[in-house]
């Protein structure tokens, strides 16, 4: 790893750790929530980078898994509040140690099922079939009348963690930060291991990989399922941050946002996705404060970035630009 990249990672880590302290010091503690949102979206975007940037599988339906994770948390909290059982036998829960692993596992299973079917196609067809499955889950969420349908479902309080006050914005921020950093470390190790080498091989040339005696399908499916599970965890965290879930979580524009974050930060850079999430969310917030019609500025910025700034921000900052 280049020295400059190592320095950049260290700087990012310090920034993440010091952020709540910094914004409180300048008297803007309400900005902690913004930081939490950036870290959560960064987690979702980094999980997407795993399959898009490293595996070359362009999923245009990643918001589906994000939404599944969010809805698992929302629905469990709903039943915990009502004291009723889901499907008549699953009790609700507002314990993070129950709800978050459940979100992770169920989103992973959804990704396993969707991936098993979608990965039989490639290229444009893969983009569109992942979008189609995401749309199905979106309309499923809309039709869940018990859980608010179109309007969504708000719940209170945040999921409880033993020994921590998740209601406190700073504590919750650090919980999210620990999960994000944990995922980044795990993903880095995975990418440096055989799994990562094979995954990059999938992106470069599947046929050659098959000639080496490695079946690409299994490794692609494993990556897709892991990526979906982590996106589900991110969705669970987002639901907690807002204490609200709605079909908006699964909307196809959310999948578009995630792809933008990945590209903005740099494809296949892992940490770059977090940077991309930060830049996009900050840009949106700043532009929205400046004008109600911020999208008319954001749209052309995105177009210009794609046309003229190839390789992403991480490559520029770390001096490791890839072609």
């Amino acid at each position: 790893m280049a020295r400059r990249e190592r320095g950049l990672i260290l700087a990012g880590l310090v920034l993440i750790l010091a952020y709540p302290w910094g914004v409180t010091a300048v008297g803007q503690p309400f900005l902690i929530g913004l930081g939490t949102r950036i870290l959560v979206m960064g987690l979702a975007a980094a999980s997407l980078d795993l399959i898009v940037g490293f595996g070359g599988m362009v999923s245009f339906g990643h918001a589906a898994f994000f939404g599944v994770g969010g809805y698992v948390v929302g629905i469990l909290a709903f039943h915990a509040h009502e004291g009723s059982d889901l499907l008549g036998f699953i009790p609700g829960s507002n314990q993070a140690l129950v709800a978050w692993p459940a979100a992770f596992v169920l989103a992973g299973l959804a990704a396993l099922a969707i991936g098993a079917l979608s990965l039989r196609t490639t290229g444009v067809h893969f983009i569109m079939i992942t979008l189609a499955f995401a749309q199905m889950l979106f309309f499923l969420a809309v039709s869940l009348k018990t859980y608010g349908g179109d309007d969504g479902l708000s719940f209170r309080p945040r999921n409880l963690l033993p020994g921590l006050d998740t209601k406190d914005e700073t504590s919750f921020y650090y919980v999210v930060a620990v999960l994000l950093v944990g995922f980044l470390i795990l993903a880095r190790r995975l990418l440096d291991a055989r799994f990562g080498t094979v995954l990059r091989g999938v992106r470069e040339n599947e046929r050659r990989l098959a000639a080496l005696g490695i079946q690409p399908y299994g490794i692609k499916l494993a990556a897709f399922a892991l990526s979906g599970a982590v996106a589900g965890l991110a969705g669970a965290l987002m639901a907690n941050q807002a204490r609200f879930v709605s079909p908006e979580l699964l909307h196809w524009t959310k999948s578009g946002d995630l792809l933008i974050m990945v590209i903005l930060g740099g494809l296949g850079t892992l940490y770059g996705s977090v940077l991309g999430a930060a830049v996009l969310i900050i840009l949106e917030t700043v532009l929205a404060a400046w004008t109600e019609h911020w999208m008319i500025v954001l749209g052309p910025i995105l177009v210009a970035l794609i046309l003229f700034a190839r390789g992403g921000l991480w490559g520029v900052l770390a001096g490791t630009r890839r072609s």
Partner: protein
Amino acid sequence: MLLAEQVLNGAEFGIMLFLLAAGLTLVFGIMGLINLAHGSLYMIGAFAAAWAGNATGSFLMALLTGMGAAAVIGMAVEALVLRRLYARDHLDQVVATFGLILFFNEAATMLFGRQPLFARMPPWLGGSVELLPGVPYPAYRLAIIAVGLLVALGLYLLVARTRLGMLIRAGNSDREMVRALGVDIGLIYTLVFGLGALLAGLAGVMAGPVFSVQVGMGEQVLILTFVVIIIGGIGSVRGAFVGALLVGMVDTLTRAFLPGLLKLVLSTSDADAVGNGVSSMAVYLLMAAVLLWRPRGLFPAHG
């Protein structure tokens, strides 16, 4: 009787989708471009037509303005932005054209506001026609079906019988070879894109009086249009036609009859909720099934 009416509704919706899908599938097949902003051209057509129709009171003016605006803006966007994306990978295309959607939606909001715009029907198509005894059907909707069928015929003749059509088909199978044979492929790109934009504008103009003219109307049909061309097979106008009718029928018929059928086994409110959910999902289920059965669509254009 109700069934006949719903089948016509399905055909009408399918025809609208076909007008959008024909351009999109050619752009996709020839230039290899995923253009998410195709729905924006439809929206531009609808807004321009509604504005011109309300200002002049003439449907002809609305039609010309709508199609003209969509074609001119479409070709301008092609020359300024999209042309640079043809050689890029699909990911770049998706993100850049997503940016264009944001731009056009916000521009429409600034110009026309968030309230839906009223688009008037031509008065001479305001009545209804009794196709079968006892089944009156709005003349305007029949006119949409007729126009769509004419466009389909025209496109068929253009692609199958003319020199330009021959070049379009050649570009679909191997654009490098077409270029190597000394054909100005850039000109074909612009013409094909302009044609697609014109048809999207036409769809927008005709949709105006039936659906509401508002920001975001493009994205609702855009995704269905992609479903159509994936089902039909990328690059194939025939596939787009079959796919569009299939999607139009499945969407309309499940929406009309599924909640009623479910009421036989479920309580009324459950049946409505489940029925609406499943009928929204039906076309995506159809697409997934087609792709798993035939990964390249029903009528793959090349290879």
